[in-house]
C-alpha cells in the first residue's frame, strides 16, 4: 500500500481492508465506518430501538430526506411544510448588529427631557445584572434622547428626526417596542436572536427556512447573507459565519455570503483556459465519484457537496445577472440614493435584496455593524442612521410599489437595546449607552403583519416592558408563522431532542401583530 507523502499515518497500520476476508464483508465494514452509522446499524441489529433513534436511524433518515433535490421533485414538500397557507413567501432581515438605542430612535419618552442627569430610580433598575462596563459606575444618570421626535403618517407614530426616511413609511411598519432577550453581551445575544440559542451550533432562522421551505429558484442560493462594508470609525462587533450556519442541519442550508468587494462569490468564474463545457464535464466526473463515495460510505454530507458543486455551476451565470445593476431604471437610483451604486453599502445591499426577492431567494439577511454606541452617541448615531435609514425605506417602498410587499416580510432589528442611563460621563453634548436586554424596538413590514401599529409598551424610562412583552423566541415564532410554519411542529431530531428554532422553552406567536 503506497502512502501519500503528506499522510502522517504510519505505513504498516493494518485496516480491515487488508485482512483476508470476503469482499462483501469489507464493503459492510466500510459502510459502518463512521461512529454515527456504526451505532445506528448496531442499534438496528440488536434492537436497541432507543439508541438507534437517538443516534442513527432517525437523524440519518431525516438527512436523507433533507438533502438532494428535495423540493425539485414534487409539489408536496416532504416535511409537510408549510403547515398552513403562508402570507409571506420570503423574508428579508436587516440585522443591525451592535444594538441600536431604542430610546433615541423609536421609543419616545417625552417625560425624560426634564430628568436630564437625574439618577435612575433604583426601583426601576431592580436587581438587574449590568455589564462589566457600567456595573462599577457610581451613578446612573438619565440621558434623554438628544434629538427631537415628531409624529408621522396617518398613524401619528413618533419617530426621531434621525430617521427622516423611516418616518415616511411608518404607516407600513409594525413597531414592536417590547422585544426582550435573555443575553446582555453581543455574542450570546446575536446567537439567540439568530438561532434561538445563546450557544453556537444551532441552525439559524435562514437555515431553518431553507431546510423547511426549500428553494424557489434552482439557480440562486435559498439563503443569502450580505455584509455591509464597515465604517472604521464605528464600534464594529464581529459578525461571523456562525450566525448563518446550518448547525446540525445539512450544510447546504447554511447562508451563502455574497462579498461586497470584488467578485460577489469567490472562485465562481472559470479559471483561464477552462471553458464552460470543460467545466461541465469536470463536474460530471466529480459527481460520479461523489456518488460512488455516497454509495460506499452513505455520508449525507456527500449529498450536500454534490448539490453545492451544481449550485456553484448554475450561479456562474445567475450571480452576474443578479449583481448587474445597469438595467435598473432611474427611479431606482432616485429612491435608493447615489450610495446604492457603490457595492458594499447598506443601500446597495438593500437593492440587491430586492433583486433577490424578485428572483426567488427565500431568505436574505443584511448585516450592518457598528451600532454598539457605548460612547459618543451624539457623534456616531447620526452617521449610523444616515447609512441605513434611506436604504431601509427604499427597500420597503420599492417592494411595495412593485407589488412584492404582499408576499415578502421585511424585518429590521438588532440583538438587544441600550440603556436610558449614560455610560461614562453625561454632558449636555454627549453621552454613551450600555447594553440593555430588557427592552428594544424592532420593526416588521409586509406580508403577514399588521401595518401601522405599535405593539408593546415600556415604562417611562424605556427600561422595563409594561405591556405585551415579546421575547426573542416569540418574535422568531411569529416570523415562522408569517411564512406558514407552526414553530412547535417544525422540529429536527438531534441529540435526542426534537430541536426547533424557538428552543424547548415555550414560545408564542404574537397574535397582536398578525394581519
Amino acid at each position, binding site marked *: 500500500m503506497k502512502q501519500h507523502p503528506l499522510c502522517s499515518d504510519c505505513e504498516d497500520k493494518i485496516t480491515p481492508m487488508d485482512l483476508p476476508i470476503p469482499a462483501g464483508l469489507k464493503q459492510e465494514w466500510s459502510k459502518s465506518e463512521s461512529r454515527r452509522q456504526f451505532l445506528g446499524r448496531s442499534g438496528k441489529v440488536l434492537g436497541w430501538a432507543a439508541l438507534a433513534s437517538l443516534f442513527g436511524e432517525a437523524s440519518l433518515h431525516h438527512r436523507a430526506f433533507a438533502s438532494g433535490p428535495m*423540493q*425539485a*421533485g*414534487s*409539489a*408536496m*414538500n416532504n416535511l*409537510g*411544510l*408549510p*403547515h*398552513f*397557507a*403562508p402570507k409571506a413567501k420570503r423574508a428579508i432581515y436587516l440585522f443591525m448588529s451592535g444594538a441600536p438605542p431604542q430610546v433615541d430612535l423609536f421609543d419616545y419618552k417625552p417625560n425624560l427631557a426634564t430628568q436630564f442627569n437625574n439618577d435612575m430610580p433604583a426601583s426601576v433598575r431592580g436587581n438587574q445584572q449590568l455589564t462589566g462596563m457600567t456595573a462599577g459606575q457610581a451613578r446612573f444618570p438619565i440621558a434623554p434622547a438628544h434629538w427631537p421626535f415628531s409624529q408621522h403618517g*396617518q*398613524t401619528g407614530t413618533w419617530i426621531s428626526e434621525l430617521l427622516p426616511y423611516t418616518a415616511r413609511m411608518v404607516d407600513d411598519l409594525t413597531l414592536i417596542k417590547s422585544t426582550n432577550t435573555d443575553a446582555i453581551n453581543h455574542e450570546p445575544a446575536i446567537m439567540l436572536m439568530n438561532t434561538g440559542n445563546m450557544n453556537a451550533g444551532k441552525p439559524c432562522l435562514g437555515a431553518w427556512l431553507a431546510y423547511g421551505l426549500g428553494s*424557489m*429558484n*434552482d*439557480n440562486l442560493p435559498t439563503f443569502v447573507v450580505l455584509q455591509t462594508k464597515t465604517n472604521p470609525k464605528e464600534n464594529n462587533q464581529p459578525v461571523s459565519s456562525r450566525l448563518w450556519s446550518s448547525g446540525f442541519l445539512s450544510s447546504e442550508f447554511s447562508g451563502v455570503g455574497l462579498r461586497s468587494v470584488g467578485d460577489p462569490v469567490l472562485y465562481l468564474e472559470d479559471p483561464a483556459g477552462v471553458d464552460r463545457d470543460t467545466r461541465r464535464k469536470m463536474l460530471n466526473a466529480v459527481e460520479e465519484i461523489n456518488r460512488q463515495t455516497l454509495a460506499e460510505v452513505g455520508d449525507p454530507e456527500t449529498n450536500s457537496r454534490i448539490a453545492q458543486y451544481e449550485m456553484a455551476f448554475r450561479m456562474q451565470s445567475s450571480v452576474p445577472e443578479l449583481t448587474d445593476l445597469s438595467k435598473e*431604471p432611474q*427611479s431606482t437610483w432616485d*429612491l435608493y440614493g447615489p450610495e446604492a451604486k457603490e457595492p458594499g453599502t447598506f443601500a446597495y445591499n438593500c437593492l440587491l435584496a430586492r433583486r433577490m426577492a*424578485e*428572483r*426567488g431567494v427565500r431568505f436574505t439577511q443584511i448585516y450592518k455593524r457598528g451600532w454598539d454606541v457605548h460612547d459618543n452617541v451624539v457623534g456616531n448615531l447620526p452617521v449610523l442612521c444616515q447609512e441605513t435609514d434611506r436604504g431601509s425605506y427604499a427597500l420597503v*417602498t420599492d417592494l*411595495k*410599489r*412593485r*407589488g412584492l410587499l*404582499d*408576499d415578502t416580510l421585511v424585518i429590521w432589528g438588532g440583538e438587544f437595546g441600550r440603556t436610558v442611563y449614560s455610560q461614562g460621563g453625561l454632558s449636555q453634548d454627549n453621552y454613551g449607552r450600555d447594553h440593555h436586554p430588557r427592552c428594544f424596538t424592532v420593526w416588521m413590514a409586509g406580508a403577514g*403583519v*399588521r*401595518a*401601522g*401599529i405599535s405593539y408593546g409598551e415600556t415604562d417611562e424610562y424605556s427600561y422595563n416592558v409594561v405591556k405585551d412583552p415579546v421575547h426573542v423566541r416569540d418574535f422568531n415564532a411569529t416570523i415562522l408563522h408569517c411564512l*406558514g410554519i407552526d414553530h412547535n411542529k417544525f422540529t429536527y431530531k438531534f441529540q435526542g431532542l426534537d430541536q426547533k428554532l424557538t428552543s424547548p422553552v415555550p414560545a408564542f406567536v404574537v397574535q397582536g401583530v*398578525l*394581519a
Partner: protein
Amino acid sequence: MRLADKIFGFAGDLWQRLRQGQRPWIGASCATVLVLLSLLFLPLDGRAHADWLQFFGRFHPLLVHLPIGLIVLLPVLEILGMRRPSLREAAGLVLEIALGTCLVAILFGLLLAYGAGESGTTVTRHMRGGILLGSELLLCVVVRRTWLEGQPSRAYFLLLTAVLLTLTWTAHQGGSLTHGGDYLTRYMPPAVKRFLAPSAISSHPNSFFAKHVYPALDTKCIACHGTNKEQGGLRLDSYESLMAGGKDGVVIAPRNPDGSLLLQKVTLAPSDPHFMPAEGRTPLTPDEIARIRAWVRAGASAEASSVPGMVIAGEREEAPPPVGDYSALMGEIRQMQQTQGAKLVAVSAKPSDGLILRTTDIAASFDDAQLAKFERFAPFIVDAELGRTAVTDEGVETLVQFKNLRALHLEDTALTGRTLGKLSSLSQLTYLNLSETRVTSDALLPLKSMPNLRHLYLFNTPAEPASPESGLRSTQ
C-alpha cells in the same frame, strides 16, 4: 280489548295499588305531576326576587347534569338488560333516581329563573322542556312497573324515546342560555352558516355597524341581552333593538359617546357592580370599545360603511373557498415538472389550499404554449408566477381557465393589456401585478368590475398613477 277498557283497567290497577298503600311513592308522584303541570303556566315576570332564591338557584347548572347522565344511561341498561336481567333490574333503580334528581333540578332551576328575574323565549322554553321531561319520566316509572309485572309494553319504549328527545331539546335550550344561542354555529364554516341562516343584520352587511360593532355585541352581550334572555329589558341583537334601549332608557346617544349608557357601563372598573358584561363574562376589548365609541361619535348610523378617523388596520379577510383536491394528479404534476421545468408547488400541506405555478427557473423560455400545457391543472392553481416570462396577450386567454386564481404575476412581460378584459371572469382574483409592462389605463377599464381585485400593481407602466413612489392603485 278496546283501548278505553285498557285505560280504565290501568287506572283501576293504579287505584288498587294506592288503596293498598303498597306503593306510597305512586301517590307522591301523581301529586308531583299535578304540581309540574301547574308550573307550566307559571309566569316569569322578569323581575328579580330574593337573593336566597338565586343563591340556591345557581346550583341548577351543577345539579342538572346528574339526571342527564342517568337518563342517557337508561336505554343502555334497558337494551343490554334484554340479555342480562340483572341490568334490567338496575334500570328500574336508575329510572327512579333520575326522576328524583330531575325534580330537584327543576326546583332549583325555577329558583334561579324566578330569583334572577329571567324572561325571554329561551328561558320559557327551557322551563317548559324541563317540566315536560319530569312528567315523561314519571310516566316512564309508572308504565315500566306494569311492564315488569309481565306485560311487555311498547308504550314504555315510546316514552323513553320521547324522554330522550325532550332531554336533547331542553338541554340545548339550557346550553343556549349559558353559552349564547350561537354557541354551536359560531365557528361553523362560513359557507354552511350562510346557507343555514342569513345574518340578523343582513340589511346592510357592509356597514361599519355590521362589520365592527355588531360582532362585539354578538359575542359579548347577547347571551344576556338577546332572544334568550332580555335582562334589563334590553336586547342588543339588532340595530333597532340596540337603539330602542331598555328599562333604563336609551343606551346609545348618537354623536355623544360619553353620554351613551352602553359605553359608560362597559368602561367602568371591572370591580364595579354595574360593570358590563356582568358576572365575570369576557369584557369587551379596548379595540372593540374604540370601534363602538368611534361609531357612536360619527352618529351611530346603521348604513355608513366607514367612520371618519377610524382606520381598521389589517382587517382579517374571510378565507377564500378551498380548491379541489389535486392529490390524484400528483404523478402528472411531478412529470410536468421534469419535462417542463416549471413547477407546481403546494401552497401548504393542505391540498385544498391549492398550487402555485412557479416559473422562476425557466422564466425566459416560458411562453404561451408552455402555459397552455398547465390548463389541465388550472382549477387547482391559486397563484401564477408568470413574471419575467415570455407570456403574451394571447397567453392571458388561457388564464381564463384558472378559475380559482387569487394572485397573478405578469410583471416585466411583453403584455400590452389588449386581452385583460378576459380576466374579469376570475372572481377570486385579489392580486394582479402588471408592473413593467406596456399596459395602458384604457386596457384596465374592464377590470373595474372585478369584486375582489384589491391589489393592482402598475409600477413603471403607461398606466401608472401620477403619485410618486407608489405603484399601488386600488380599483375600488
